[in-house]
């Protein structure tokens, strides 16, 4: 298990190196440099040259890459041309917002999806089963930027139950402290419970919008997995042994049905990063997705270079965690790795 994890972590090195070259080339292939985005169209050539020199963009590409690689190895991603702040600070400020969003979406999907899929399988052919099948098919087909505005209209504009945008009511909680930048956690840590509750309320709609597709997949996979396991010989044996229904369900059915579910949760967690970009856009959340898509429009080289490397690392680590978690559910995997 440890050997497997170490080997996978070592694989990160060539991938990140390749990615750093790719990102470096890609960022410089963007039409128009950061000076055009910073100074506007009517910038004088002298001023543009000044800006380029200030950020070192006038040096030969190989020198720029060498410097960038050296800095990156020290976790220094350079300075954002748009915000004039260190990229690492920008990431530590924004990434918690994306994590909060992604976690609440996946929790929403798991907490609702596994019981729903289980019930649908157990009551196969009933209205509940049919409704969950139709619902999950629709759920898979509805993108964040379609569902998000509808939720916003219904629950924020029409009913006024929940806030439409942002992470927290900035006027009501302007003095809220943010030691970790996880707003819910911040509220709890600093004892500002109304602020925490406000942050939760801001998370509900985005989490539903982002979590609907994973919810649909998890429901479908759970239903299929439970149906497959229920018909298996070992379940019949367990029942024949006279075990109670609860024990059979918990120890034999659910545990074995969880393997494909864990796989799909892992796959969906990776995809959440893509969905988060759109969700943050729909709900005006200042997270990584907004930072990155904004950086492309502003030609913010340092943010793009640092951000993509950072996200790719997170993405690969999530996939590694998912692979390792198979061992929790399947002793055969534990033995093999």
């Amino acid at each position, binding site marked *: 298990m440890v050997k497997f994890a170490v080997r996978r972590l070592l694989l990160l090195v060539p991938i990140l190196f390749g990615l750093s070259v790719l990102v470096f080339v890609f960022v410089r292939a963007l039409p128009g440099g950061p000076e055009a985005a910073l100074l506007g169209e009517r910038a004088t050539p002298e001023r543009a040259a000044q800006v380029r020199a200030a950020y070192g963009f006038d040096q030969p590409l190989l020198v720029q890459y060498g410097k960038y690689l050296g800095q990156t190895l020290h976790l220094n991603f350079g300075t954002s041309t748009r915000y004039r702040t260190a990229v690492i600070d920008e990431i530590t400020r924004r990434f918690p917002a994306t994590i909060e969003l992604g976690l609440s979406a996946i929790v929403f999907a798991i907490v609702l999806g596994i019981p729903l899929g289980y019930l649908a399988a157990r009551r196969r052919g009933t209205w509940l089963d049919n409704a969950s099948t139709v619902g999950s098919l629709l759920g*898979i087909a509805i*993108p964040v*930027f379609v569902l998000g*505005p*509808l939720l916003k*209209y219904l629950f924020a504009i029409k009913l006024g139950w929940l806030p439409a945008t942002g992470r927290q009511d900035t006027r009501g909680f302007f003095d809220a402290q943010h030691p970790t930048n996880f707003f819910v956690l911040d509220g709890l840590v600093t004892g500002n419970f109304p602020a925490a509750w406000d942050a939760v309320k801001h998370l509900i709609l985005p989490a539903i919008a982002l979590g609907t597709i994973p919810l649909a997949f998890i429901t479908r996979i759970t239903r299929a997995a439970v149906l497959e396991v229920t018909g298996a010989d070992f379940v019949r044996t367990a029942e024949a042994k006279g075990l109670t229904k609860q024990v059979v369900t918990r120890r034999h059915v659910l545990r074995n049905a969880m393997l494909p579910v864990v796989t799909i949760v892992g796959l969906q967690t990776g995809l959440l990063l*893509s969905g988060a*970009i759109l969700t943050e856009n729909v709900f005006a959340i200042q997270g990584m997705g907004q930072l990155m898509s904004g950086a492309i429009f502003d030609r913010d080289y340092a943010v793009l270079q640092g951000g993509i490397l950072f996200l790719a690392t997170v*993405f690969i680590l999530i996939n590694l965690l998912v692979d390792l978690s198979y061992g929790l559910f399947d002793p055969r995997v534990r033995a093999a790795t």
Partner: protein
Amino acid sequence: MSIIEVAGPSAGGFQGGELLVQPAEESSAGLLRDAFRRLRRNPLAIFGAVLITVFVIVAVFAPLLAPYDPVATDLSQIRPGVFPGPSAQHLLGLDQLGRDELSRLIYGARYSLLIGVVSTAMGASVGMSFGLLAGAFGGWVDGVVMRLMDVMLSIPGLLLAIGVAAVLGRSIVSIMIAVAVVNVPIFARLLRSSMLVQGRSDYVLASRSLGVTRRKIVLGHVLPNSLAPVIVQATLALATAIVEAAGLAYLGLGSEDPRIPEWGRMLAETQSFLASAPLLALWPGVAIVVSVLGFYLIGEALREALDPKLRS
């Protein structure tokens, strides 16, 4: 690892190889017929096919079906923040510039279908070329190609698409390429792993022992037999391509011409009128969901129909 290690030009044109082609092809034709029969019996597949048919008809015959010119504006009907809703003349009402919403939706189907089909075809063909290269040659070729694919897969798909679209500038073609690029590593991996499985099968061993050339085995046997998962993936990729293209347009990376009725852009444009004209945000969404659902249903049904485990 190479799937077939046939050293050098093997025993010149051993005709025995031809004999082997026969049963292999017959079984794959049987598989397709079998799959089609099962597709016809699956109500969800039929429903998906109906959705796709409607979608394609609307896209192809848009000029005949649309009641109005999709780019003609009628500002006389528009007051700030108030747009005429559905009426007998305009079934779905007018948008913020006084354009007929229904006509824009109908023309939007053209762009969605075009982008979806072209980008999937591009992504699949480039991806499959890489997959074929890796699967057929193995060794260092496989290593280099697959590490490159790993690097591409390590970037979240939409971010990659945004980046490519930004580099290429705002146009329909750059959206197509951006969506295609995301698909390349997926198809490459799929075809490679499918070929690896086929490469270990008995009929390949038999062909090798008969001295059939490597080229003939790869192109004539392994490749055709590895295509089933690729076909399924292509159908599902069409659904994703429509969503991704709409997402890029939503983020402001669509075509440069603001009059072009892309569903994603239409959605984004209505966001500022969400309170006064919520229906304008609904229609493009419904159009996206219907077309995506169609391809998704067909793709899933195909997966089931082609799954050898479920074959009777």
